């Protein structure tokens, strides 16, 4: 009886215990404010505030919560360009990620198909892809800046204007998050069983019909694995992109608060980025599960 209750609540209790342990370790190494009252040379009382601890400047959990409250409790506030509620920042970052990610999918999927279908194409471009794949977003962003130097893109219908740094950020997100989609799609296309292709051949399906009726559905599970990994990377890149371009968003906020010596908000940003990334991954894996065949 007792045991079964413990087993049933495992999923809740164990993670809570884990989080508690981490917070405990955090509070142990975090710094504390110590007030010292001394008399100065004129005999007046002076309070000196000093931080002591293993890592003196690291804010403790309580301090972090205290300082983050205005951002969390009023998540949609807009007090200034770089002083907004945390969900506002998240929304801005997500918008940017969505644009770069969409481009990555639109470009990456066809490239993956070409890689998988054509040996010549694969031999021609695979080495380049393998070299470009491990390049960090921090390295791509300056190149993006150079590429779109002075560029200004206005989409007439929507009234949205993209500055050079917007374009550079989107470019960076797109090119960094493209690779998992490209490679997984290519693997998926190569892994299509010969039987399915034989079916297409026997029925004399046209090229387009073979693509949409056989190749695409057969590759979908692989493609979605790629899409999921790509989304993870796109979200990873956002911080770097926003940091370097100074755009408002979770990453931009993080960098600004670091420069403003407001360390509690860094932790807030890290947790936000982590939680949003986790939620995105869960959502994608739900979508992915819909497309699993066989």
């Amino acid at each position, binding site marked *: 009886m007792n045991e079964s209750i413990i087993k049933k609540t495992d999923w809740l209790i164990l993670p809570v215990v884990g989080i508690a342990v981490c917070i405990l370790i955090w509070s142990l190494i975090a710094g504390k404010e110590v007030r010292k009252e001394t008399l100065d040379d004129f005999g007046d009382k002076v309070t000196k505030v000093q931080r002591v601890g293993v890592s003196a400047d690291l804010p403790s959990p309580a301090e972090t919560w205290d300082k983050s409250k205005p951002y969390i409790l009023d998540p949609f506030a807009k007090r200034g360009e770089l002083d907004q509620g945390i969900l506002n920042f998240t929304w801005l970052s997500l918008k940017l990620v969505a644009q770069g990610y969409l481009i990555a999918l639109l470009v990456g999927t066809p490239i993956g198909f070409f890689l998988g279908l054509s040996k010549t194409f694969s031999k021609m471009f695979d080495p380049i892809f393998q070299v470009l794949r491990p390049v960090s977003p921090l390295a791509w962003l300056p190149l993006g800046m150079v590429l779109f130097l002075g560029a200004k893109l206005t989409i007439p219908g929507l009234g949205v204007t993209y500055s050079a740094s917007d374009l550079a950020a989107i470019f960076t997100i797109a090119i960094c998050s493209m690779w998992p989609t490209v490679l997984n799609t290519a693997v998926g296309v190569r892994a299509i069983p010969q*039987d*399915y292709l*034989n*079916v297409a*051949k*026997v*029925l*004399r*399906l046209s090229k387009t*019909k073979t693509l949409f*009726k*056989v190749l695409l*559905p*057969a590759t*979908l599970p692989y493609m979605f694995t790629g899409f999921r990994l790509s989304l993870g990377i796109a979200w990873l890149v956002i911080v770097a992109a926003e940091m370097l371009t100074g755009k408002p968003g979770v990453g931009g906020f993080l960098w600004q608060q670091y420069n403003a010596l407001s360390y509690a908000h860094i932790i807030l940003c890290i947790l936000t980025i982590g939680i949003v990334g986790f939620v995105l991954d869960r959502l994608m894996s739900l979508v992915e599960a819909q497309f699993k*065949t*066989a």
Partner: protein
Amino acid sequence: MFLLEVKNVSKGFGPKGKRTEVLEDITLEIEQGEFVAIIGYSGAGKTTLMSLFAGLIKPDSGSIKLNGKDMNGPGPDRGIVFQNYSLLPWLTVYENISLAVDQVFPQWTPERRREHIEKQIAMVNLTPARNKIPRELSGGMRQRVSVARALALKPDILLLDEPLSALDALTRANLQDEINRICQEEKKTVILITNNPDEAILLADRVIPLTAGPRATLGPSIPVTIPRPRSRALINESYDFKTMRNEVIDYLLMATDKRKVAMSKKLVLPDLLPEDLNEPRSLISAKRRPRRRSEQRRETVEVTI
């Protein structure tokens, strides 16, 4: 005129030097309405033979004619049932068949196509499972879908490539009876490739052995004289059946034995003896070293018993 005419067809794989000839000098003539079973060892090239008939691969030499015309690539005039079903796993039973029917009979009205598909599904007794995807079906059911899909194309000839070999014995027997019934009803021309002599004799009008590979070729065809309808129970008792089965098996065994040729070869053993580990290893006096057999001499060694 024969429906299918195969003349001196050979097929090999691999680059020059490492090439293996799989099939050699295959000649076969099949008449309209005939049920022919080709039986052979696994690995003999049965599936290669079937792919040739289907047009999925081209012969290196020789010709294959269907209806008097040279065969030109795969096509829906030959319905194929593969060993591993080849159903598209993301489509339901109905959709799998309709993909084929829609492609092959675009001139029909949608209503007629739908009726045709339903008829095929009913023929293989799968109407209750029409909206299931292959994953939800048993092996036997999948294979029946595959048969229905092949027959839905109204092919001139039905090619069955070991259709039942992945199934358990009981399902296999059931499906054999079903294939038998359908083929008799539809009066189809069928080539069945199998590794099971009983299956071949039970179903076919004529059994042709395929010798073991490489360089497999077809043996003389053995007509099955047992009258139809053949019952599984009676056939096991039948004397004709046993003789026929022995004939097929004997031929296959004999054809293999014929390839075995006596050959004498000189075998040379290595002339080296292992070094004596009791001798101390020393750089100067090379006492411990591998010795040649020719250096061997009789020594007297004291042993305490």
